[in-house]
């Protein structure tokens, strides 16, 4: 019964990682350079979940199996005066769609809440069982 709490914690961790990724996407929605300063537009990142506890192999739960980058084409905008513009005057921007990120963030925070309420129920059930002894 106690591992239901660990399981809930693994869900919280996974959903928080997802929210962190979404936050990074939104923060970098207009980033056209990479960390070393070269022109290399940011690509959208997303997490992939897989069943199984992240720290205890064989236990039920959920873990972040991978953080992948979105290979979809980068949108181009016509900005001839921009220092990162190509020969035709187009600038490549990150393939981050804010509406997609918002919907995903909403889903992640709802899933987080669902896990919190499951953990509350687990706690109440464990407490009720423990009161049998005392």
């Amino acid at each position, binding site marked *: 019964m106690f591992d239901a709490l660990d*399981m809930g914690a693994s*869900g919280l961790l996974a959903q928080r990682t997802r929210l962190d990724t979404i936050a990074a996407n939104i923060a970098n929605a207009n980033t056209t350079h990479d960390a070393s300063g070269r022109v290399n537009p940011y690509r959208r990142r997303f997490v992939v979940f897989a069943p199984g506890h992240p720290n205890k192999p064989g236990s039920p739960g959920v873990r972040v199996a991978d953080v992948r980058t979105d290979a979809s084409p980068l949108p181009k905008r016509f900005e001839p005066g921009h220092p990162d513009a190509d020969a035709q005057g187009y600038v490549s921007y990150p393939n981050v769609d804010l509406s997609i990120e918002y919907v995903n963030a909403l*889903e992640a925070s709802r899933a987080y809440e669902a896990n919190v309420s499951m953990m509350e129920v687990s706690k109440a059930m464990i407490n009720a069982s423990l*009161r049998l002894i005392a």
Partner: protein
Amino acid sequence: MFVDRLLNQGNAPLLEQMLRFTAARHRLIAENVVNVDTPEYRQKDLSVEKFQAMLRSRVERRRDAGDGADVRPFDGLEAEIETPKSGLLFHDGNNRSMEQLMADQAKNAMMHNLAVELLRKQFQAMELALKERVS
């Protein structure tokens, strides 16, 4: 031997099985909630109907066996009745239904509370009998 019979007579073992079942089912529901966004994950469940039918048949078997019967014939029920949940399959291969999960979770927690309360009452009665007074 006396204590063993005291604890395993009547419906105490049935309540114990109910607790084991609801705890096992709670774990599965929590696992389903945790994996609500996992691709290719199929929701799992324990069938309450099958559990009750099995419990009933074992109670009858115990009753028919009479006084010398095994007092704990119920162990391991929950392992036998795991069934995959049906439901709308999404494009990521997950048949999630958060509403159904929350309803199942509430029903299951109520069943657990009921079993705990009934057991507690039995233990209280036993305690009063041991003290030989009604308080």
